[in-house]
């Protein structure tokens, strides 16, 4: 018995050193690659910009997971809804397809107001989804896995309703909605570190900044406010926390509202960058978003941002001739990280409750 213990301890120590060694070598190789590649630094910024989009998508996803320990597959649809709501709140007309063809709202809101309005409406849709797809199953004590399917069903329904009402065409926002801004920023050569000046699109800088601010706000909300503490109590044990007088159902609704709000605003920002390409706009980010939150650590809010940025940077360094394998490379990164850290980059290893 003792012998086995000793050898398993040795094995664990060896594994600890090996995994740290691997990680260190990988990081050194990565930094060397970035600095020596002909457009390494530019690619790094490109990757951060792409990763910013993944991160902002994944934040709402991970918030619900952190409280309920379930994946809300309808998050992609919420993201899409936010983008459409903003479009209509600016007073723009529906296209020539769908039941609402050529209709428009009787008022026009300035873009920033419409964006917040779109986010709030998306938050309300989040509440609706909780009532329709999650609470009935939770009340009946159904396996949490079942909500995965019901949320997927809600996502498909939302996508189809959008297509029915407003058609499948591409929608776009007015350019320069936040006032006159240059389309791209020149970041210079970083003191001669690169031969060519680094350029980056302004909207991508905005998305990156918003995802950083959101992660700070959400972290503060979860850790620094009374509601956040109550949410963590619910996450720990819903039954006990309700016995302690915490209104569990209300707090879960709050979580869905915030997740929808963040998702809706994110949808609008991403739509500003690449247009709203149709009802499947947000759903297309779903699988990538899942990879991001698993990579960052399931339910870990800063982890969603780190995961998003790592996958974005990995994709940016895929040479153009292998662009078809870009998605595969993102998942290879995920696989390698999970081999070394099954709990994700920032996640904590689950403690076995006895």
């Amino acid at each position, binding site marked *: 018995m003792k012998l086995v213990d000793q050898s398993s301890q040795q094995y664990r120590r060896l594994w600890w050193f090996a995994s740290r060694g691997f990680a260190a070598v990988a990081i050194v190789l990565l930094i060397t690659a970035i600095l020596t590649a002909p*457009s390494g630094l530019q690619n790094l910024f490109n990757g951060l910009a792409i990763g910013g989009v993944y991160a902002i998508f994944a934040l709402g996803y991970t918030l619900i997971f952190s409280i309920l320990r379930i994946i809300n597959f309808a998050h992609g649809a919420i993201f899409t809804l936010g983008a459409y709501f903003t479009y209509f709140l600016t007073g723009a007309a529906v296209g020539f397809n769908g039941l609402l063809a050529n209709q428009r709202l009787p008022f026009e809101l300035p873009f920033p107001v419409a964006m917040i309005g779109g986010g709030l409406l998306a938050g309300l849709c989040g509440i609706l989804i909780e009532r329709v797809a999650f609470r009935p199953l939770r009340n009946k004590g159904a396996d949490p896995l079942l909500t995965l399917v019901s949320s997927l069903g809600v996502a498909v329904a939302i996508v189809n309703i959008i297509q029915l009402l407003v058609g499948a065409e*591409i929608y776009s926002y007015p350019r320069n909605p936040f006032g006159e801004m240059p389309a791209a920023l020149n970041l210079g050569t970083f003191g001669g570190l690169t031969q060519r000046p680094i350029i980056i699109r302004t909207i991508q800088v905005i998305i990156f900044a918003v995802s950083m601010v959101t992660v700070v706000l959400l972290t503060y909300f979860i850790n620094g406010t009374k509601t956040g503490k109550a949410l963590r109590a619910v996450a720990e044990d819903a039954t006990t926390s309700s016995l302690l007088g915490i209104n569990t159902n209300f707090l879960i609704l709050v979580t869905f509202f915030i997740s929808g709000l963040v998702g809706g605003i994110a949808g609008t920002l991403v739509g500003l960058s*690449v247009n709203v390409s149709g009802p499947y706009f947000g759903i297309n980010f779903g699988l990538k978003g899942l990879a991001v939150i698993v990579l960052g650590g399931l339910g870990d809010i800063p982890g969603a941002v780190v995961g998003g940025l790592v996958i974005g940077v990995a994709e*940016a360094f895929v040479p*153009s001739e292998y662009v*078809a394998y870009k998605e595969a490379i993102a998942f290879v990164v995920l696989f390698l990280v999970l081999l070394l850290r099954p709990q994700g980059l920032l996640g904590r290893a689950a403690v076995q409750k006895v």
Partner: protein
Amino acid sequence: MSKVSLSKRLTVFALIALLALVPSALLVRAAEEPVVIGVAVAQTSNVALLGQEQVIGAQIAEEFFNARGGVNGRPIRIAFADTGGDEAGAINAFQTLINRENVVGILGPTLSQQAFAADPIADQAGVPVIAPSNTARGIPQIGRFIFRVSAPVAIVAPNAVKQALKMNPEIKRVAVFYAQNDAFSVSETGTFQQTVKDLGLELLDVQTFQTTDTDFTTQITNVLPLEPQLVIISGLAADGGNLVKQLRELGYDGMIVGGNGLNTANIFPVCQELCDGILIAQAYSYQYDSEINNAFREAYKAKQEKEPPQFSAQAFAGIQVFVEALSRLDERKPLKDMDLATLRAELRDEIMSGKYDTPLGPISFVETKKDDGTPAGGEIVQEQFYVAQIKMNPDGKTGRFVFVD
């Protein structure tokens, strides 16, 4: 006994009389009945935007040629069958038209992909097919009965590059982008890259993307330091439009040539005012001045209150080829004396040998060969091509294709 034999005799007489009457009745009916031409295009699915334009072109042709006496006094009738957007739909539509509607020939289908599936069926049945919009390589080579009035990409696409050089003779350095997961874009970029080499230009870099991509920063920042003066894009509307938008935002100010996937008003909302100036080659111009095109343009505008697009003009031209070939054939060998199979076979040869003055300009067909050297269908010989440039309206959301020369 004699009673029985009388009834027998009566029956035989009745049968003979009937047999004599039926063909003459059929002949009388045939003289009055319209000649049926099938149109199998996408009226539903995501290809319907294109298919609808083809339906309008064919309807205008039906009214126009019937008003001019149809096939030597006998009217034509168009039988429509919806193919949807996929191969199975195209096969169904073709079989309905061939076996149930007894058409003399078929105009369709909308997509090259559908043509590769459905055309062999018509070819085996000996039914002439005219493709109104299939531009991929190898369409007429499917079989002897297959023709197209849509000029292949290898002939149309180079015109836009030549036009760019005409507008800016300084252009030497070219970068090419294409969607590597779209069969049409891959074949089109081959033509573009060959054109760049043939014109003695320097091909700086070839960058690939996927039609599902939304962010092209990496590809663009790879290319911009090489300082291209011309960028050529083969992709579809959403990805192509986003690529144009991001190219301009990241500071590219040279000329842009777009492939046929960008040849749609659907890219206007994507790149908005940044779409301005993209050059795209065209097989049809509504400004082309000829009697038939002016008549077609008037008829289209009366119906749709806008200028006719290429898809409608090509569908009209396809029906015109059928009607004129049938008329010539009828003068040589009256159609009513032929059974359907003979008529279809004769019509195939008549289409191949004719010359047609269509809204696309004067066209004719040249017989192609299959890989094994056996004769195949007719490839279009078209004399005139055009290049259009996108001009966006001040609202930044709508625009139009303006023909340049």
